[in-house]
Each structure stands twice: as C-alpha cells, then as structure tokens.
C-alpha cells in the first residue's frame, strides 16, 4: 500500500540533465512514446534511473513501515478469524516491500544501501504511516481508505515504462483487493453493531479521511516532479486526477456504511459528475513528511531496532553458509 506524493521528498533534482547526448535522449523518448518497456540492462538517462530508484525504494520502504500501524493490532484482533486475516495482510505488505526492493535492485542500487538510506532518514516513506492506530476500527479504515488510495495509484503503475517496476506492481495489485475488501468488511461489521461500535467506525473515518487524501501528494500546480515522470510514462495520471477518482468512488461507500465524511463542504456536482471538497491542510502534509507527524519517531525507532536486533542473525547465517560451502568444496 502506498501512493504517490513521495516524488516531493527528493532533495536532488531528478530532472537535472545527465551526461547524455541529445540523440540518446531522443532515441530513449521515442521508445517510451512507442510504449516500449525499458528493461534493467537497457540504456537509460541517469535522471530516469535516479527517479526510479528513488520512487521504487520509497515505495518499498512504505510497504515495510506500513506493517507497523497494523501490526499494532495483531495481538488484539477481536477474533481468531480477524487475527489470521490481519496477519496475512501484514505478511503481504512485507512481500510487497520485497518485490519492490528487488525491482529497485535491477537499477544497480544495493538492498543494504536502500535500507541505510531509510534508516538515516535520507529516504522517505508514505506520510500515512505516521498516524497512530488507536482503535480496532482504524484497521478497517486503513484497509478501506489507505489500501483503497493505494490501489488508485498502483493500477496505473502497472503500465509504468520500467518493466521490473511494472511487473512488481501487477503482482501487488492482484493482492491489494483483498486488503481493501477486508477493511471495508470490518467497517460494515462495526456499522451494523452497537451505537458505540458505529461511533468507533466514524471516529476512524474522521481521523483517516484527510491523511488518505494527502496520500495522492500536493495539488498538481505544486507537484515538482510530475511533468517529467509523466513524459517518461512512470506516472500516468496527475495527483489531483487520482485524488478526485478516489473521492468519487469512496464517498458512496461511506454513505452505504451510514457514516459521514468529515468535510462540511463536500457536495456532488451534477454537471461535472464529481464531488467537490474543501481545501486540504497541506501544512499538515509537509509537517508529516518533514518528520513531525504523530508517529514518525516511533516508526523509525522500531525499524532501526529490528535492523540492529537482526544483525547477528544475518551475519551468523552468512558465515554458516560460507563454512558449509567450504566444507563441501573440500570434501
């Protein structure tokens, strides 16, 4: 689960021209325009490679950090069935992270380097995972809204011009629908329960609605890297287009649940056939991206601890494998 908006986080300018000649760049663009897929060993502009490394690795980090807010409820799921489902979903997120890390590695960056960039804070992950999961209803809201927003973004990424990324996204999208449906089913169950349970569902929607809309990234006018990504067919739709699509499909789902979307200005425009909504608090988005969300510190601490605590296991396995290989070579 992830959406765009991470293309804001890069410090270096990915559109900065590399050492390529005009002819090389034109030939590359011709391939892109013809909808040819670019494969790992094909020639590509440095800026294309940099953009992809940043986007795919940050997408992978999002999947891995995204395990934390949901993992928080694994031991407290309300039934064995819900627990098994949530465990399977969290495992899927780990799997998605691994598909994506391996796609990024085809571009010549090592797994260790990517992890180091995450742990040092150089690489970002999706802002949404810096919000806390305070009640069981949040697990429903995350599956429904956060995975829902992720699907909106990831489906066009299946057609991304970079082959390994596109194939990873196809795999991810096949699994993502289960995530969203299990979340909506949790919401349905709560909304069909006691008044208190329904209030929990409403509270979760209230807290996750705006952060979910922010997942699509800044408004198009303020989206720094969009134009080049669109030209390279890494990105197929703008942030605002995807956000609008998400709102249009999600509002009726909220109505079915009998819940109120926390936006007084939300209304359906019969002419455009789209919902109109009030402005997003972008200051909140930039604060969270900058590291000042409610859980940024906690998420990073937990990830660093996991990395440190596992170090001896990784090292022991490596040394054991070497010894075994040496023994079988000697035999």
């Amino acid at each position: 689960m992830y959406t765009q908006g991470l293309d804001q986080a890069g410090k270096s300018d990915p559109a900065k021209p590399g050492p390529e000649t005009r002819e090389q760049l034109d030939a590359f663009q011709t391939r892109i325009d013809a909808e040819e897929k670019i494969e790992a060993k094909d020639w590509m502009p440095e800026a294309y490679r940099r953009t992809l490394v940043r986007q795919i690795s940050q997408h992978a980090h999002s999947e891995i950090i995204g395990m934390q807010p949901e993992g928080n409820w694994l031991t407290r799921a309300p039934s064995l069935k819900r627990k098994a489902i949530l465990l399977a979903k969290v495992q899927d997120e780990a799997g998605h992270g691994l598909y994506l890390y391996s796609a990024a590695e085809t571009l010549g960056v090592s797994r260790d380097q990517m992890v180091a960039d995450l742990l040092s804070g150089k690489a970002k992950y999706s802002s949404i995972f810096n919000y806390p999961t305070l009640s069981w209803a949040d697990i429903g809201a995350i599956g429904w809204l956060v995975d829902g927003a992720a699907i909106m973004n990831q489906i066009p990424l299946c057609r991304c011009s970079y082959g390994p990324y596109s194939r990873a996204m196809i795999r991810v999208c096949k699994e993502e629908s289960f995530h969203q449906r299990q979340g909506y089913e949790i919401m349905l169950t709560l909304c069909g329960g006691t008044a208190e349970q329904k209030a929990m569902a409403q509270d979760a929607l209230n807290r996750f609605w705006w952060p979910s809309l922010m997942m699509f990234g800044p408004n198009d006018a303020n989206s720094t890297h969009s134009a080049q990504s669109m030209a390279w067919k890494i990105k197929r739709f703008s942030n605002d287009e995807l956000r609008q699509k998400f709102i249009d499909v999600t509002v009726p789902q909220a109505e079915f649940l009998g819940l109120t979307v926390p936006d007084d200005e939300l209304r359906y425009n019969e002419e455009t056939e789209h919902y109109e909504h009030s402005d997003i608090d972008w200051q909140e988005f930039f604060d969270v991206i900058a590291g000042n969300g409610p859980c940024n510190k906690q998420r990073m601490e937990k990830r660093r601890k996991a990395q440190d605590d596992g170090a001896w296991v990784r090292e022991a396995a490596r040394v054991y494998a070497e010894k075994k290989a040496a023994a079988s070579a000697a035999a």
Partner: protein
Amino acid sequence: MKQEWPLYEVFIRSRSGLSHRHAGSVHAADDEMALTNARDTYTRRKEGVSIWVVRSDKIVASDPEESSAFFEPAEDKIYRHPTFYEIPDEVENL
C-alpha cells in the same frame, strides 16, 4: 559494513504443463534459504507447484546494447517462416 546475502533469481512453474517463469529475486544466505524465501515471497497464494532459484551472478545474459548485432543472423532469413512460400489455393492440407 557487513556483507549482504547474495541475490537469487526466482523462477516459478505455476502448474504442471507450463514452463518455469521469472518471478523476481530474493536475498538468501544459501540455496536452501533461497528456496524457502522464494516460497514465502512469491507463492503465498498457491502461485506455484515448483520453484527454481539460481544465484543472480551465475546468470549469463546477452547485452542489450549489442542486441541488433547479436540477433542479426535471424534478420534476413524470412524463408524460415511458412508464409514465405506461395502455394496455390487449390492445394489443401499444406
């Protein structure tokens, strides 16, 4: 920095009768771990009945930069295709 576990490419046969197909890659300390990691990463929904893993550094690949020269021998042999031959319509079963 500690050394990274080697990278393995993963190939999966989705059901018997089909050939193995590249699925992605995994890191693992040894061959056996590569198989179980590949299973956990790429077949959580019964996507496979058989897995091959091979160290990525053992794969020999053709160079895309040289691909036009490399595949050139096949360029001018259109007579290898059945449509190259003109057979009168009256002749059947050919």
